[in-house]
């Protein structure tokens, strides 16, 4: 009907309704619709409608209730009870609320009456079975059976405790119970079921409708109507057969839907389903068809793994709480295979108790990672200072598992051992490592962990064969070792192994983006370790290879923001190795490109905190390369950005190791730049803060030599600054500290070329400082040491320009000292060596802008020496 037409109909109808009697209405209609018989028919049909109780939806429903609730049985006398109203209906009959008629005080009970017309012998037998079962169950959380009998019409009934409560699922929702409160409630249910099991009674039909919770919060289990008696000699078989058609698909166990034997463990399964629903507020099973077909029930109940409760949870905050132990407990209870479940309802309840106490739950297989996480969780404060305890714990666990593995391998098949080792290695590598990596002081533990894991891995690699997924896992494992180990050779080996595996994988599956990604990462990691080991050329090569793959991946998946983020990271890494090797121009190009890509990443994902944090490193890197090129003003610009970001995260979480590290890096760079630009007071202030931060980090994690190197570099840099502002004594103190740490580091790890280069710098600086105070012997001593280290560095790492400029500089320093000691011949020789290096670099085109004048400068010094010699 058109809106206009409806207005016409409506107005006519309203006018007609003004007449109280049908005759008046008919008269009116005839007049009003004289030209429009269709209108008249329309209005008349509306007038014919009864104007009755059509008042509100709720009242309509109320009416319906009235109909449903007034069957003839109301008020009927059953034994000593009078039926008040029906509480519900099931397959077997109806349950009534009844009042004891002959007592002074009113007693309310529930009476279960068999349905008329279905009182076959079979149902009667089942009914009698239920009566006996309930008589044996005297438990506060199980509805009591008071009485049983036969009504006047020959139908059996029985009298049960009347439970005024709501379904357990509704109760937890309506009361908005916390997870802990839910678990407490659920443990009571477990105990009640356990009690029934001890009496050899299986419920078989647990479901929310059978578990009511009183307003006082006590759960009550109802309806053992299809329970199976386990005790021999009972007619349990009939009960089982009869029960088969009555199962509730959403709560039945796999063995029930498969028609297999039902045991107490079947109830454990159903408890798992209930716990799932109580925690996640979503049913564990969702059927694709309604009603579910037999095949659908079989698929969902017997075969399909349920979604983890934490994932299914209606409320994401709840989901987070469920992740971990509670997921595991629920899924353990719901295991498809009965043998994998808790052995009894009591065990399930106990495990929930352990969870509530913060103790390790049994549902977890005893992975190292898990036990350690629990240990760390309970001992949060002690951990930072008690790495030893952690170590001891780890060593113990590892030893036990190692022995267990050996014991097993002797009897079990090779395949099983293999899987076991794989699982342990994975657990070590991924779970435990990740769980401790941000705890200050964890380095030693991480290294021990890695050494053990490496032993497993090498074994695995030998047996891996053509298993691609295992190989892929192996490569990640090797990478992790490369990441945490501080032994350069070990890191290099592990990373080469990882890269080799990934190269193989990419060869086999050239389009597999995961393998390509892993290979790119492998190259990146190799580049890193090569840099540390003093192989600048190959470090740069690997960084470029890594970048090339990242570029092609990002081009292939232009909407993949993570791929883009990795690309940005690759540009940044390339910039870092380039600047380290002294290629400032190229480094700056790469850093600029990195920043550009990173900004695109952030435009895609503007709210990501992690990307914002990363951005700090991009600014820092640019600032660094600009500083190296002598462009301090621009460097300061970028530095401000880095510091802003670092401060943001530091203020949010000042205890976080990474926040502190980033803060140190920003302050350190800032201090240097302020020093170079003559802002003395500010520089000193920033240096002091930087020193404080990095010293604290190094104390927290003595075994992390990376931190100690940074301590040394911070002191060195501070010393340089102090020397330029004529505070030689204080400078000497900082140099000495830098020297002591670096010498220590070199002794511990002679392979680290970067330590050699650091030391060369420090010795050189100490020498020059001594020169300033006129102690020539000391000057020569330091400069000799510096020279020898610098020469080694150049020999070992010819691709590193900075090593060469350092050496050229030291030669020039020696020349200067000889000038001061009036030995122009020796001076000339040193200058000549210096000039050779500068000239060579100039010819190669590798001379950086800041050093552009060096060849002429040295040539002038040589000319002076020549003049003196004449």
């Amino acid at each position: 009907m058109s809106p206009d037409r409806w207005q016409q109909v409506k107005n006519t109808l309203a006018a007609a309704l003004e007449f109280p009697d049908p005759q008046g209405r008919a008269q009116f209609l005839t007049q009003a619709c004289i030209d429009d018989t269709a209108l008249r028919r329309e209005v008349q049909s509306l007038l014919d409608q009864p104007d009755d109780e059509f008042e509100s939806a709720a009242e309509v429903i109320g009416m319906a209730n009235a109909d449903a609730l007034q069957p003839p049985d109301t008020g009927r006398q059953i034994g000593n009870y009078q039926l008040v109203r029906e509480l519900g209906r099931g397959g077997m009959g109806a349950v009534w609320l009844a009042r004891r008629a002959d007592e002074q005080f009113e007693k309310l009970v529930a009476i279960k009456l068999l349905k008329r017309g279905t009182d076959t012998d079979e149902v009667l037998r089942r009914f009698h079975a239920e009566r006996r079962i309930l008589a044996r169950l005297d438990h506060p959380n199980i509805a009591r059976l008071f009485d049983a009998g036969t009504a006047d019409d020959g139908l059996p009934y029985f009298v049960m405790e009347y439970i005024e409560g709501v379904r357990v699922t509704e109760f937890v929702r309506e009361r908005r119970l916390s997870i802990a409160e839910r678990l407490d409630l659920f443990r009571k249910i477990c105990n009640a079921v356990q009690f029934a099991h001890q009496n050899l009674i299986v419920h078989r039909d647990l479901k929310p409708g059978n578990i009511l919770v009183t307003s006082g919060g006590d759960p009550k289990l109802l309806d053992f109507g299809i329970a199976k008696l386990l005790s021999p000699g009972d007619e349990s078989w009939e009960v089982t057969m009869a029960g088969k058609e009555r199962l509730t698909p959403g709560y039945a166990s796999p063995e029930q839907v498969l028609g297999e034997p039902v045991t107490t463990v079947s109830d454990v399964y159903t408890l798992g389903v209930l716990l799932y629903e109580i925690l996640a507020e979503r049913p564990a099973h969702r059927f694709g068809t309604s009603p579910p077909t037999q095949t659908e029930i079989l698929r969902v109940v017997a075969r399909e793994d349920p979604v983890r409760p934490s994932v299914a949870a209606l409320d994401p905050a709840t989901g987070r709480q469920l992740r971990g132990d509670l997921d595991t407990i629920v899924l353990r209870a719901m295991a498809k295979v009965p043998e994998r479940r808790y052995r009894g309802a009591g065990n399930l309840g106990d495990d929930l108790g352990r969870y509530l106490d913060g103790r390790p739950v049994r549902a977890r297989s005893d992975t190292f990672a898990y036990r350690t996480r629990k240990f760390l969780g309970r001992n949060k404060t002690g951990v930072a200072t008690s790495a030893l305890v952690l170590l001891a714990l780890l060593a113990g666990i590892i030893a036990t598992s190692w022995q267990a593995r050996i014991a097993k391998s002797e009897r079990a098949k090779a395949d099983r051992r293999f899987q076991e080792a794989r699982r342990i290695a994975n657990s070590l590598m991924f779970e435990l490592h990740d769980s401790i990596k941000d705890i200050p002081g964890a380095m030693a533990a991480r290294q021990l962990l890695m050494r053990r894991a490496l032993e497993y891995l090498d074994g695995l690699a030998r047996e891996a064969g053509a298993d691609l997924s295992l190989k892929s896992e192996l490569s990640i494992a090797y990478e992790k070792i490369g990441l945490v180990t501080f032994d350069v050779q070990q890191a290099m080996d592990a990373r080469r192994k990882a890269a080799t595996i990934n190269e193989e994988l990419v060869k086999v599956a050239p389009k597999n983006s995961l393998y390509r990604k892993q290979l790119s990462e492998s190259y990146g990691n190799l580049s890193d370790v090569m840099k540390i080991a003093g192989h600048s050329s190959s470090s740069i090569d690997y960084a470029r290879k890594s970048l090339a793959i990242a570029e092609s991946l990002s081009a292939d998946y232009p909407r993949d923001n993570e791929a883009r983020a990795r690309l940005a990271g690759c540009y940044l890494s390339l910039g870092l190795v380039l600047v380290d090797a002294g290629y400032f121009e190229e480094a700056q190009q790469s850093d600029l490109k990195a920043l550009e890509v990173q900004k695109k990443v952030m435009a895609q994902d503007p709210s990501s905190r992690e990307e914002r944090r990363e951005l700090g490193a991009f600014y820092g890197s640019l600032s660094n390369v600009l500083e190296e090129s002598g462009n301090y003003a621009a460097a300061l610009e970028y530095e401000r950005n880095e510091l802003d970001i670092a401060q943001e995260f530091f203020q949010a979480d000042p205890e976080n190791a990474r926040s502190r590290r980033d803060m140190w890096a920003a302050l350190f760079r800032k201090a240097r730049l302020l020093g170079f630009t003559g802002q003395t007071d500010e520089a000193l202030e920033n240096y002091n803060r930087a020193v404080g931060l990095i010293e604290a980090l190094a104390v927290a994690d003595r075994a992390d030599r990376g931190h100690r190197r940074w301590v040394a570099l911070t002191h060195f840099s501070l010393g340089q600054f102090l020397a330029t502002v004529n505070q030689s004594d204080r400078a000497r103190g900082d140099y000495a500290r830098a020297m002591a740490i670096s010498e220590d580091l070199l002794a511990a790890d002679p392979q680290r070329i970067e330590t050699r280069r650091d030391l060369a710098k420090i010795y050189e600086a100490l020498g020059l400082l001594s020169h300033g105070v006129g102690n020539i012997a000391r000057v020569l001593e330091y400069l000799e040491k510096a020279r020898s280290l610098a020469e080694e560095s150049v020999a070992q790492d010819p691709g590193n320009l900075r090593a060469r400029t350092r050496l050229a500089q030291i030669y020039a320093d020696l020349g200067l000292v000889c000038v001061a000691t009036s030995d122009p011949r020796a001076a000339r020789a040193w200058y000549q060596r210096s000039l050779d290096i500068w000239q060579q670099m100039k010819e190669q085109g590798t001379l950086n802008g800041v050093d552009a004048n060096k060849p002429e400068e040295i040539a002038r010094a040589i000319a002076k020496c020549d003049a003196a010699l004449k």
Partner: protein
Amino acid sequence: MNRALPAVYDELRAMAANYLRRERSDHTLQPTALVHESYLRLVNQHAVDWNDRLQFLSIAARMMRRILTDYATARGAEKRGGGAPKVQLDAALDFCNDRAIDVAAVDHALRDLETMDPRQAQLVELRFFGGLTIEETADLMKLSPATVKREWTTARRWLRREIEQA
């Protein structure tokens, strides 16, 4: 206000279930009480600034319509399908029998009315699903009580006929 809508829906659904179960012996619901009580609870729990109580009532009516219609539809599907596993909500309306007016049919007819006369349809929603009185409805819709009465009477007859014919 929109942020609180899911909360309103959940709250009303839970309360509807509760009321229908608890009140069944009295054979009637107190729809206005239901909606008004939910209003108070929501204001307390969610710190929602319901500066306009009537605005809330119209939302509540819309929600009740959704709840009851979803429910009726689910039950209808269940009846057609035979022994399907029961949907979560069904405890509440287990006692609703086949002779009741089909709420889903009301919803359907109301959608037709919306195309013909949106104002009248909204008025029906407030009265039928929200349980608002003539006076409240008039107040909310800024109409005279006489107009509300007239619209309601005519709509009611039309709906009746549409449902019977369906």
